[in-house]
């Protein structure tokens, strides 16, 4: 079945996107990402520790950009200006690579997005030629605004970043999915495999997660579970679930031909 996820004209076989933070070490990072089957992996952009450990391994040696689509993020940015600066540095770091994840945070306690700043940054980045995948609130109106600005994917939260609280408002996600002409990915909040499957069954085009894998007791095993959950959820969505009926009175086995009748 050819069921590729297409983002900014590029096709991807996997609908699971994963982050690279919070792992014990780079070996575990790579093992979990391999088990997840993800082709798109997010990274953060940070200052080098000048003069300290110049020989310490580099994340991009572990996850070579020739093999993975590196998705630089703007985690930790609270203004449009900081987010744009960060992604200009990311584009230089990744040799002109245009695909980026925009997130502008509004509050360190909840990490909820600051939507006015997110919209402002999206406009600037789209104008500068970036392909913007954007972390946003699950407000269908603002998700539509981001699409109209020219973002290549909208990525509403399912619940707070790192919370593992799952899909808290499936109906808002549905409203966003129904209206969107670009891929909709759940970004943030997935805690376990069933959450990812629910997101996909709702009709999401993909799921982006980090903590649910990295903070599992066995990250590599959870990465594998998430791969299966996203695939299963996608297939269930495409297959179309049966209608919900409180009383079925319609058994699966034949009603005739019973012995002794």
């Amino acid at each position: 079945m050819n069921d590729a996820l297409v983002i900014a004209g590029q096709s991807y076989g996997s609908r699971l996107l994963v982050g690279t933070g919070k792992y014990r070490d780079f070996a575990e990072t790579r093992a979990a990402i391999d088990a997840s089957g993800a082709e798109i992996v997010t990274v953060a952009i940070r200052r080098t520790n000048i003069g300290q450990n110049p020989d310490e391994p580099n994340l991009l040696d572990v996850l070579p950009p020739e093999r993975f689509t590196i998705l630089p993020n703007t985690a930790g940015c609270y203004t449009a200006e900081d987010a744009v600066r960060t992604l200009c540095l990311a584009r230089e770091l990744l040799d002109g690579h245009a695909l980026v994840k925009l997130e502008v945070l509004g509050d360190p306690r909840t990490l909820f997005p600051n939507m006015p700043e997110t919209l402002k940054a999206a406009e600037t980045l789209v104008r500068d030629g970036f392909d913007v995948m954007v972390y946003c609130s699950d407000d269908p109106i603002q998700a539509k605004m981001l699409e109209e600005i020219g973002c290549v994917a909208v990525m509403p939260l399912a619940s707070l970043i790192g919370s593992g609280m799952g899909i808290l408002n499936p109906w808002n996600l549905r409203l966003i999915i129904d209206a969107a002409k670009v891929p909709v990915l759940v970004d943030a909040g997935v805690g376990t495999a069933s959450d990812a499957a629910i997101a996909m069954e709702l009709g999401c085009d993909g799921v982006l997660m980090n903590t649910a894998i990295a903070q599992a007791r066995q990250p590599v095993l959870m990465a594998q579970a998430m791969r299966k959950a996203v695939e299963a959820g996608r297939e269930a969505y495409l297959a179309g679930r049966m209608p919900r009926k409180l009383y079925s009175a319609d058994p699966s086995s034949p009603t005739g031909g019973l012995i002794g009748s």
Partner: protein
Amino acid sequence: MIQLFVNGQAETVDDGLTVSDLLSRRGLAGKRLAVERNGEIVPRGRHAETALADGDRLEIVVAVGGG
């Protein structure tokens, strides 16, 4: 001598130092990184020709784990 602010830290260096010189002094030559000078990207191809000036603010960044 000129004063620079490299990743937020003040330091004093010789006149005429280029971005390339600064990176190699720190063992960062050839690493996957990006440099911003006073808010503008310094493309990799221009590190060798970009001389630093007094008061320059530099950001040198790499990719790290993140979601």
